[in-house]
């Protein structure tokens, strides 16, 4: 069964993509994910300067998902160019980048372009780093401005990753207006946990982002709404751990899905999901295009 998918001009061997920030800091781990079947990989978000991230705990497992506040730890784009060059391999490498404003985003994109990224994913959605991510993604003007700045600076596809808000369609439309080739929905949801013995918030940063199974229904609605309103590619992310989850997102209009937390249970989740999608298509006598957006009524 052919699962080849075209997303913003990139040929993916299947529609499963490693989500930003999961095993994405080094070339070797990105390559390990490629060999476990992913159709493409997204790197850890990279910025202008070295950041050590938040103090620990930076991540915990909860009953229904994970909480994380890594805090955009990264070695800066200067250092990451070596990693990116080495990461280039079997499948497209999409580089996630972040900044405080349009200038910083542009600087990072231009700094990395020489190392050959296949696309950029703009992190306008991280919920736990002040002045970055979601604080920009919630403002449609900033979304449009930043998207346009990067789009004008580079000649590779630009994806815009959005935070899960009730106004996500507004931000999505702003990204489209700024020239985005795709939107990616969603990042983690703002969340926290408290240790009842010590009465301390558990994350070093006090609060962070919820990922995993718990957020799937939220992400699915975001994708559904964006698909109805936008005419660029939508990439679904949030709680995908099985081929059935992946198909829900495709039925809601996603061209591809990113997978993060589910790597915890299964390193080969990409292969397993692709196999499941292939079986479903075979059984139903459809191809991917027939299914994509089929639930949007």
């Amino acid at each position, binding site marked *: 069964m052919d699962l080849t998918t075209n997303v913003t001009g990139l040929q993916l061997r299947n529609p499963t993509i490693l989500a930003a920030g*999961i095993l*994405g800091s080094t070339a*070797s781990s*990105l390559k390990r994910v490629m060999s476990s079947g992913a159709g493409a990989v997204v790197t*850890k978000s990279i910025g202008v300067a070295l950041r050590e991230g938040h103090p620990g705990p*930076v991540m915990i497992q909860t009953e229904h998902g994970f909480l994380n506040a890594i805090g955009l730890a*990264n*070695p800066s784009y200067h250092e990451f160019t070596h990693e990116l060059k080495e990461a280039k391999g079997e499948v497209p490498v999409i580089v996630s980048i972040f900044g405080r404003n349009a200038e910083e985003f542009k600087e990072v994109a231009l700094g990395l372009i020489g190392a050959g990224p296949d696309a950029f994913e703009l992190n306008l959605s991280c919920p736990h780093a002040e002045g970055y991510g979601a604080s920009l993604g919630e403002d449609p003007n900033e979304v449009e401005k930043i998207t346009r700045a990067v789009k004008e600076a580079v000649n590779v596809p630009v994806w815009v990753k959005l935070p899960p808000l009730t106004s996500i369609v507004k931000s999505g439309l702003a990204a489209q207006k700024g020239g985005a080739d795709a939107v990616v929905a969603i990042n983690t949801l703002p969340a926290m946990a408290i240790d009842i013995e010590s009465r301390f918030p558990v994350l*070093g940063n006090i609060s962070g982002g919820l990922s995993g199974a718990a957020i799937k229904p939220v992400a699915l609605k975001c994708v559904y709404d964006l698909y109805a309103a936008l005419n660029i590619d939508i990439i679904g992310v949030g709680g995908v751990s099985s081929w059935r989850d992946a198909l829900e997102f495709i039925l809601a209009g996603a061209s591809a899905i990113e997978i993060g937390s589910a790597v915890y249970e299964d390193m080969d989740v990409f292969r397993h999901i692709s196999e499941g999608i292939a079986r479903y298509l075979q059984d139903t006598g459809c191809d991917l295009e027939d299914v994509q957006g089929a639930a949007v009524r």
Partner: protein
Amino acid sequence: MHAEITQIVNETPSTQTFFFDLYLGHVPGQYVMVWIRGVDEIPMSLSYSNAITVQKVGDATAALFKLGKGDSFGIRGPFGNGFSLEGKSILLIAGGVGAAPLGSLAEKAKGNNIRVKTILGAKSAEELLFKKRFDNAGDLMIATEDGSLGYPGLATELVDELDLAKYDAIYSCGPEKMMFRVLNIAEGFDVLSRVQFSLQRYVKCGLGLCGMCCIDPSGLRVCRDGPVFRGDQLVGTEFGQYTRDASGKRVKL
């Protein structure tokens, strides 16, 4: 989980063992993430099923050293693979605080009637960790850099004298330079697959998701696929060459 400190033992001038009120069923070599509230969360090997043995090196460990009996910290785990105990006669090579996970391995081996020989190294006699535990578990050879006890020099110089082919399995934990030397010696004896090393890398999430502790070029995660790796998994990797800091930047060893 909430761990209340039940007893603190001064092991050496720089290390203390913190016993707590939980018994974690663990494989020697497994570690826990220790949350010193309001400061940081750091990985620590279990030196007993109810204790960690800590060397004071920075903020989080200094904060831990300020705690007393009755105080508490948060704990997640045990995590990682731990040492796999094999054969009838084994060799342990420990350097400095690297003796922490090997102490409980030595005791488990003795309990299984495995012959244990240990080479224990430290800067000075007073810095030798778990001397008694290793002595009780079998044969002990000591090396101190200042010559205050045992062989004057590095632990690896004692390893040089041994026929590594005689041991069914070899276990090593200590400074990476020391372990890298052990790797080279083992390569000379063609026994790489019989040596198990416990690695130290910057462990952030402990769950195998953030990817900060992956080793090049295999992408194996120290926090989840390790921290224990066999010599044949480490040949030709970053091991002995470089590590990474909290940002993911490479740092030469």
